[in-house]
């Protein structure tokens, strides 16, 4: 195991019936770094995040976080261990306000018992206050403080993405898996998001795994990039190297027509 590998995936294989979605993928993410995964549609990026967060079972390989093997753990255990994620197809709690969504993210931080909540003990009040404060912080961080009381389902698409990010942050991630966080954000908002991710890395010391198709964002903030295609790693390296890799250009980036 590499000494700086916070998250380490070795030979991860995932199968859906006949489809081999991931084929012995090796992937690792360092502490305090943004590691991006890019690749064509259907390459297996989301599947890799799913495998890491425990949503799909592994057909082979192993996943460990700071040396602790998580391959067999259910998703909530992984989340408690620090593997927190957002979703490509938004999964927000539409029946709650934005604030409650994020407070739900604090679930594992406020640890009063059921009895405390039934009897409304001081521990309950302290816990709720803490959760609320933490949630407000996270909302403020992503710039949603003004929508705290809005029902989450009524938020426009782009803001729902930010809400998911806030909720993930509230869960105190050790490693944060972001699945296309910039989809649905315009270019300016994407840049703001880039700034946020950077702050998450630098200020909170969280490792970030970023799956994204917005190349400006990816190239701008990644420390390391892994390129997947057809369930296999086809390139790995710093942004500048990957950008120039002919195989990557052929499979994914296409002929560059940017200014």
């Amino acid at each position, binding site marked *: 195991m590499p000494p700086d590998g916070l998250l380490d995936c070795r030979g991860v294989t995932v199968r*859906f019936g006949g*489809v081999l979605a991931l084929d012995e993928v090796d992937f690792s993410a360092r502490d305090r770094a943004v590691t991006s995964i890019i*690749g*064509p*549609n*259907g*390459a297996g*990026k*989301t*599947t890799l995040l799913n495998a890491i967060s425990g949503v799909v079972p592994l057909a082979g390989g192993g996943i460990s976080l700071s040396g602790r093997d998580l391959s067999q753990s259910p998703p909530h255990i992984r989340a408690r261990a620090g593997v927190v994620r957002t979703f*490509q*197809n938004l999964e927000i709690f539409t029946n709650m306000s934005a604030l409650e969504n994020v407070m739900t993210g604090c679930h594992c931080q406020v640890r009063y018992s059921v009895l405390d909540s039934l009897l409304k003990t001081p521990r309950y009040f302290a816990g709720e206050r803490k959760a609320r404060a933490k949630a407000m912080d996270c909302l403020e961080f992503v710039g949603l403080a003004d929508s705290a009381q809005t029902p989450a389902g*009524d*938020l*426009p*698409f*782009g*803001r729902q993405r930010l809400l998911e990010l806030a909720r993930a942050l509230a869960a105190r991630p050790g490693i944060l898996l972001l699945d*296309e966080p910039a*989809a*649905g*954000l*315009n*270019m*300016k*908002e*994407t*840049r*703001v998001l*880039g*700034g946020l991710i*950077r702050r998450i890395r630098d200020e909170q010391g969280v490792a970030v795994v970023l799956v994204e*198709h917005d*190349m400006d964002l990816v190239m*701008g*903030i990644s420390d390391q990039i892994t390129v997947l295609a057809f369930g296999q790693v086809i390139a790995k390296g710093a942004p500048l190297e990957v950008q120039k890799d002919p195989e990557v250009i052929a499979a*994914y*980036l*296409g002929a560059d*027509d940017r200014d």
Partner: protein
Amino acid sequence: MITLKNIDIFYGRIHAVKRVSLHVDPGEIVALIGGNGAGKTTLLCAISGLIRPARGEILHKGESIARRSPDKIVRSGLSHVPEGRLVFKPLSVEDNLLLGAYGRFSLKARRQIKNDLAEVYAMFPVLKQRRGQCAGTLSGGEQQMLAIGRALMARPGILLLDEPSMGLAPNITREIFRHIVMLRDRFGLTVLLVEQNAKSALRVADRGYVLETGRIILQGPADELLANKDVQRAYLGRDVDL
């Protein structure tokens, strides 16, 4: 082709679209850009009949459609690629595409539908590979391709696209924009395009509208908008440092 006159739309008490007027002429590609929650999706839904505007008029080929049911509007030659893709998850990819041609199904049209299917497959080869798979298990980008392909299967005269590039790889995004231009050039397709990626959108568009908090604040030829300082600041993020 499409004309909106003084449209007002509410969600309960939220005034989402405020006195918006716009028009899209036949054979035009018009881009609609704006920040989060500006009301772009709402506006498209109003055109395709999914949402009833509280006030105002919507004309399609000169006929008022503001009170018409969405299926009728779609059958009259308008296709809408909705936000969030909305593919029919348990149905197979091919069934999804065939349903796209639902409005024009008949024994006579059979051949043509088959040809169109082949064309969509040619445009998105992945879909062909996955033709028997449940749409719900496709990757995000594959679903997006499916949604676009489904809309094209209707052979629309006018196409409303709500963030078509969302979740697509850069090469595919470019491919789609190219294809749209090709369809316009060859068949005179009219397109109303909502995009977050304002730059690419304005590049392919003839004209553009800028929507902010439910109001149109700016409109004009696409290249002018692209050069506009306000637009650059607000949507292209020129002033935000990475």
